[in-house]
């Protein structure tokens, strides 16, 4: 589902819920980092699901977002990602489009 907000200039700013799933059954912790949380390693922990997958559902605005998982602290690409790029530190990270 998506919701719509308005920015200062009145143009629509779409928010869309995106599921991030990380398959890491042996991990002790998985968090999501990206442009949308200033790569904060603590702000978006994923929850362990039955079967060993980790999940977080996040509302993101329209556009392309860089992100990665921190699996027990190690930066990890999302194998399901639509694209690959680098973050400001030059590390390879994943890309998600939100339309």
């Amino acid at each position: 589902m998506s919701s719509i907000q308005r920015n200062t200039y009145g143009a629509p700013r779409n928010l869309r819920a995106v599921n991030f799933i990380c398959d890491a059954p042996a991990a002790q912790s998985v968090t999501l980092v990206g442009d949308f949380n200033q790569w904060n390693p603590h702000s978006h922990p994923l929850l362990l699901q039955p079967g060993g997958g980790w999940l977080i559902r996040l509302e993101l605005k329209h556009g392309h977002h860089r992100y990665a998982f921190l699996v027990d602290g190690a930066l990890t690409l999302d194998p399901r990602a639509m694209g690959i790029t680098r973050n400001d530190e030059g590390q390879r990270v994943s890309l998600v489009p939100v339309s």
Partner: protein
Amino acid sequence: MHRMKSTVAGKRTASQSRGASAKTTHGLTHPVIIYPFRQPDNYEDLQQLYALIETLAGNNEIYARPITVMDRKTHQACARDKRFMDFRNNTVARCSDILDAWCVDTCQMWYSALGMAHERGGANDVYWVIPGDFNYGSALGHEVLSRLHDLPEICVELEQDVCIGEIAADLNNPKHLIDTYGTFALLYIWFPQEARGIREYTERPRSEFFAMRHGFLGEMLNRRWFAYEQTVVTLLHAIFDKKHISRFFVGHVSDLPEGRESVASAMAQVERTERVLKTLWRERHQGTAGWIEQYRALDAQSEQVRRTAFTILQNLLS
């Protein structure tokens, strides 16, 4: 006329298209369409493609006037074909400027059209190559058309110098086989470090889907431009010069009507790649001491790789 889904870029407002992490003032995106060399039996794929182009042409806040480059040989061969001329005059010309050019091969069509677009563009602009000879009329092709706009948008929003579009192909697809046993094998001989860098982004170093920023395109236009395999050269220069590279998955689409490619065509593609890599290597090393001996050693290894690639491709594609 088929209309695109509302998710297509041309339907978006300028503010929406600027996306998640925009940091700079944006210029225009220049769509550059590479018209197919051979005319199809039916125009469904091209009609779908030009429905998208018409949408882009109608959104001049985001897009510059699209450019379609057409080989003069195509035009001359089809000049008496009413269907072709109707399509050229009534569809292609309505939503894009047609650049007629004599071209050795596809990459020269890119050169002519990207050069023309670059002359029209400005410092913040992005250039978006859209190959015309894919099966956009299929259900999967529709999905691809709805995703292609991501390539220039990634360049704009994430300030990337080049964004490569990657199409899906199974492991036995001829393109995949050529890249695995030919392109990458040869790259690992001539430019091993850069090859590793390229493979961190893409398995399709010869992709015909890409977008580039004005500055990087200007640098590339002023270097030697190859009539073949220019994407490999572009990626190598992007790695040499530490440019910002992204890769984006555009979906399942094919330019092979029968799903196969001839052994002769596959061999020609491997030979062309080798020729380009040799030329580029010489350009970068011919000023250094002992380069001729090093070149001969690499050339011998390259020949072994090429012969092995021929054997494998012959076994798998015959």
